[in-house]
């Protein structure tokens, strides 16, 4: 399995401590992913305006940096925090997206009477812990069998 990792842009760090937190966060994420045997590679697509020099950041196994979404065509799923690229990725490649938000305990989109949230509900999965992320990734091939059919049906019917 190949994963696309696309964190969104953060506010500019207010001091070296916060800047290091942001770098640590990405390194931690890659450590968590590296432990999943099923994952062969992580393709890291940094935000175009991100204040993060990923090349100087760290060397981790199983990951490489890519420059744009077209290079992600071979991936099986996308993981992000809050990137809008989730819509392009899911609708174009018809693949699932995991919103990994370990800083929050939950996100409620079911009650929202909002078409964008309803669309989101067709391809996205929320995870809030390392173990939940691992289990969701491991289960994804199975989960997405029916998810893919639902999304394809939606795209065929809803998009002009």
């Amino acid at each position, binding site marked *: 399995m190949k994963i696309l990792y696309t964190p*969104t*842009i*953060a*506010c500019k760090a*207010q*001091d*070296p*401590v*916060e*800047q*290091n*937190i*942001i*770098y*640590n*966060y*990405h*390194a*931690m*994420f*890659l*450590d*968590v992913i*590296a432990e999943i045997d099923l994952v062969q590679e992580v393709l890291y697509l940094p935000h175009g305006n991100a204040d993060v*020099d990923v090349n*100087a*950041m*760290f060397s*981790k196994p199983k990951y490489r940096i890519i420059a744009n979404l077209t290079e992600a065509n071979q991936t099986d799923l996308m993981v992000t*925090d*809050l990137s809008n690229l989730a819509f392009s990725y899911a609708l174009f490649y018809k693949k699932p997206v995991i919103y990994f*938000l*370990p*800083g*929050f*305990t939950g996100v409620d989109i079911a009650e929202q009477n909002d078409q964008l949230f309803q669309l989101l509900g067709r391809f996205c999965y929320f995870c*809030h*812990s*390392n*173990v939940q992320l691992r289990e969701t990734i491991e289960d994804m091939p199975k989960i997405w069998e029916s998810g893919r059919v639902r999304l394809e049906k939606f795209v065929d019917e809803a998009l002009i």
Partner: protein
Amino acid sequence: MNSIKTINKQLKDGLKSVLSKDKKNIVFLSHSLDTRCAYGQLPSALMDCYNVIMIGAERVQDDFEKMGHAFIHIPCKVDLQGEVQYTSVDVDGIDLIITADSIPDQGGKVDQEFLSKKAKRLFVSPELFSSHCNHAAFDHIAISSKYAMDICQKDAQLSQKLLEVGSLRFDELSKKAAQQNMQPMITYMPASRPIPRSYVNMNFVAGHENMLLEWLLTHTDMKISYKLHASGLLKAPHYYMQLKEQWKGEERITFDESLNDDHWITSKAVLSDFSPDVYLFSLAALRNAVYLVTDVKAHKPFLDKTLEQGVVRIAHGLKDAVNQLVSPANEKDLMSIMKQQIYHIGHAQSKIMEHINRILD
């Protein structure tokens, strides 16, 4: 609502009421909570010969407030209907002000003139390898280590002020580490951090802590203690309250909110990002201290300095951090650094008392 004039008068009257006319008056001044541990048992030791007044910007009923002949709450600034105003307190009769705080407010005026324009001022660095302060504001600077002394001596004008003392807090921590049994516990003690300004940054900050705690929990069999920086104790940040709520059912994770060093010094190892307290831990307990710093390029000078001192290990990522935390500590090397670097080990208190007696002679 009191005006700043009224507040100044109240603070001044309060301070005057505890000054002695018979004995010389020494004030221990801590603007922030995290420097309150810097004085060890020195205030108590000085009480026989001097009138010792403890002054803090907050009232939290900790050990600091119980030391000395009296504790007075005197902040250097107050919030008056949303506007921050500096207090102005200048009292005759204070002979020496001892502080581990140096704050740049009002162009150094707070360091130089707060409480008294005439008293001598002694800065006691709360850190082992630094004596960073507004040097010009202090008459004397107590230095803990050779490393800090070498840095200070580059400034020729400073040489007259520098006192080889050692570290009061280090001596206290060494005693505690020797007396108390080591616990199978990792203390995570992050440095003070800014409040996140967006949901994305909030996820980075809180997510950083959660991923780390979960990893330590699943990749070690030790207890995990989260020690919030003292600056967050009066008004805990939102992410911290959320962390506490999230992990409250997990027996192996505890949150240490004490202002003393009794609990964390018993750890098997400590992990931090930038807290200088980890140096004290590593050399006082001769156990592993690790900085988790991934931003290698931006922090190169800091990392080079850390590696040069040889006390704290640097980890890049979770896997590396756990490896370094649980690997055996090199006690022999740490002992050798300690002996080479720290002045007057175990005798910092008597040494600084000699200097104080001389200053007040």
